[in-house]
C-alpha cells in the first residue's frame, strides 16, 4: 500500500522504509537532537555545543554554520530543520552582550515547539580540559537530580523533564551491569543549576552490590536559569497522550487484594448437588442386618393392614 499523505509518494521500497521510519508509530524511535549556533557565538558556546554533541553522539546532528534566528521570537526555521532531520530535541547556542553564553534547550511535538528553556553558562569546563579516560560513546547514562527546587518550582520541574528527555538515550528492556559507567548529576541550588558528569567505578564491597567511586570526566557546567517558553497545559497533555494499544492488557478474572494476595476466578457450570461425589464414609453407610429386617417386617405389616 503506497498511500502517503503529504507531498512525497515513495517510488522505491527503500524510500518507503525511510518514510515509514519517520512516520508516527506506537513505540517511537530515539529522539534526535539538532545542535546549532546562532548569529554570534563565543568560544565557550562552540566548545560546549561540541561537548554535548559528543555526549549524545549517535542520535545528534551538529550544524557547523550559523543560523541567524531567534528561537524565542520565531521558531519556523527550527521547525523546518526538525522536519528535515526528524529531530524532536534541539540545542541552540548563542552569545551577545545582553545574554552571554546562552544555551537554549528545547523539544518539539509534531514538529512544533513544545518547550524551550534558556540557560546561561556561568562556568564551564570542557571535556578536553579534564584529562581522564572517558566513557565509550553511546553508553546510557544514569541521571540524578538533587535539590528541592526540582520538586517545588514549576520551571525547574519542566527543566527536569526536559533534561531527562534530552539525556536519557534509548529506552531498553535490560542493561549490562558492568556498563553502568556514566553518571550525570544535576544540582539545583540558590537559583543555579550545576551539571557534572562522572564516570562511576564499581568497586568490590562485601556483598553483591558494588561500592561506587566517582571520577569526573565530561563537561561540567554552572547554569543559570534565564527565559522559558513552556507549553500550555492542554498542548502538554496532548503530547503525553499514549495510544490505547500501548496500555498493558488487563488479564481478566485476576484480582489482587490489599495484602497483595492474588485471586483468580473460575466460572463453573451449574452442578447437580444430588449427584455430587463426596467422600465415602464407610461407617455412615446403611447397614444390612437385624435393623433392616425389622424395618422390612414393619413395612409388610403395614401393607397387610392396608389391604384389609
Amino acid at each position, binding site marked *: 500500500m503506497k498511500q502517503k499523505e503529504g507531498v512525497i509518494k515513495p517510488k522505491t521500497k527503500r524510500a518507503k522504509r525511510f518514510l515509514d521510519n519517520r512516520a508516527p508509530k506506537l513505540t517511537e524511535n530515539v529522539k534526535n537532537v539538532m545542535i546549532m549556533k546562532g548569529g554570534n557565538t563565543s568560544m565557550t558556546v562552540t566548545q560546549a555545543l561540541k561537548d554535548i554533541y559528543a555526549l549524545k553522539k549517535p542520535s545528534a546532528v551538529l550544524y557547523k554554520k550559523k543560523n541567524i534566528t531567534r528561537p524565542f521570537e520565531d521558531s519556523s526555521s527550527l521547525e523546518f530543520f526538525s522536519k528535515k532531520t526528524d529531530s524532536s530535541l534541539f540545542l541552540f547556542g548563542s552569545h551577545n552582550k545582553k545574554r552571554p553564553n546562552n544555551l537554549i534547550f528545547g523539544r518539539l511535538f509534531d514538529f512544533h515547539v513544545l518547550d524551550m528553556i534558556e540557560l546561561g553558562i556561568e562556568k564551564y569546563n570542557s571535556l578536553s580540559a579534564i584529562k581522564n579516560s572517558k566513557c565509550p560513546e553511546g553508553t546510557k547514562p544514569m541521571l540524578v537530580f538533587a535539590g528541592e527546587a526540582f520538586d517545588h518550582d514549576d520551571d525547574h520541574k519542566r527543566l527536569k523533564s526536559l533534561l*531527562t528527555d534530552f539525556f536519557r538515550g534509548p529506552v531498553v528492556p535490560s542493561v549490562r551491569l558492568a556498563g553502568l559507567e556514566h553518571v550525570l548529576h544535576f544540582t539545583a541550588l540558590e537559583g543555579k543549576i550545576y551539571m557534572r558528569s562522572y564516570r562511576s567505578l564499581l568497586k568490590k564491597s562485601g556483598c553483591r552490590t558494588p561500592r561506587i567511586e566517582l571520577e569526573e570526566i565530561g563537561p561540567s557546567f554552572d547554569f543559570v536559569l534565564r527565559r522559558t517558553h513552556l507549553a500550555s497545559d492542554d498542548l502538554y497533555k496532548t503530547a*503525553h497522550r499514549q495510544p490505547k494499544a500501548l496500555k498493558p492488557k488487563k488479564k481478566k478474572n485476576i484480582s489482587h487484594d490489599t495484602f497483595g494476595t492474588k485471586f483468580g476466578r473460575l466460572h463453573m457450570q451449574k452442578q447437580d448437588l444430588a449427584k455430587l461425589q463426596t467422600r465415602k464414609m464407610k461407617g455412615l453407610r446403611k447397614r444390612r442386618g437385624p435393623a433392616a429386617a425389622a424395618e422390612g417386617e414393619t413395612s409388610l405389616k403395614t401393607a397387610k393392614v392396608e389391604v384389609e
Partner: protein
Amino acid sequence: MAACSIEDLLAKAEQDEAEKLKSITVQKELDLEFDIGNLVAYDKNRIDIRQFREQKKEDFLRSLARDNTQLLVNEIWKHPTERVEEVIVVKLPEPTTPLPREKPPPKPRPPTKWEEFAKLKGIQKKKKTNLVWDDKVAKNELHRLRNIARAQKIKVPGVGLTPIAQQSKSDLARAVNVAKSSTASAGKFQDRLPKEKAPRNTGKKRKFQPVIGNFSNEKQRQLDLLKVMDSKKPRLDVNKAVNKQMREVDREEAAAKFKKGGKKGRKGGNFSGKGKGGGGKGKGKGRAGGKGQGPPSGKKGAGKPGKR
C-alpha cells in the same frame, strides 16, 4: 559461659554484616525516588548551603553525587538479573516518568478501495485452507523429476510406487509384488499365499540381442531388414488397420449418440468406414487419409440436427 558465647557470636555476626553493608549504605533524611526504567534518581533532600560554601564546591558536589549514585545503584541491583551470552544483564522495568511523545499517535489508515467494496458488498475474508495432497499431482511431480534426472543423467534410486487414492486390482497386485521383492534377497525367499499367482510382466522391458553371439542369425536379420526397406511395399497389415478404424468409429458414434440423447440417427457416419477401407489400399498414406476424414464426417452429423 556457653550462653554468653552464643550471644557474643550473634552480636559479632551482626557487626560483620553491618561492616559489610557499611560501604554501600548511605544515610539520607528523605528516601530518593527512582525511575529505574530511565535510570533516574530524584533526591529531594535539602542541601546544606553553608556546607556547600565552606567546602570546595567540586568536592561537595562530588560527594553528593557519589551518595546519590550509590543509592541508585543499590536500587538497580535489587532488580532481577539474567545471563545473556556470557554477560550479566539486569532486566529493567517500564519507565515511570511521563515524557511527551515525539509525534502524535498514529491514526488508523483509511480503508483501501477493496476494503470499502468488501464492506459494501458484505464480503468476509475467508481463510484459505491448507494445501491438500492429491495423488495425481504427486505422481505428476514424480515423473517430472524423473524426467529431469534422466535428462541430466543423474542416477535415481528406484523408490517403488507412488501411492494412489483409488487402487485397482492390478495396482494392488503390483504394490504387493514390489513390497515382496524389496527384501535383502530381492524376494527370493518370500512365501506366497496358497492361491497367489506368480507376478506377470516382470523382467526386462526391452530385449537386446547379445553383442557377440549368433553371427549367422545377425546376418540374416540385417539382410531381411534391407529387403524390407527396398521393397517399397506398404508395411501395413490392411485387415488389422481396417478393423481398428471401424472399432474407433463405432465408439465415436456411440459417444455422440449418447450425448445427443439419440434424437435422430446418425446417417452421416455409417458409410465412412468402408470408404476408408477402400482408401486404405492406397500408398500407405491411406490410413492417415482415412483418419483425417473420419472425425469431420462425424462432426458434420453432429452439427446438422438443428437444421433437420
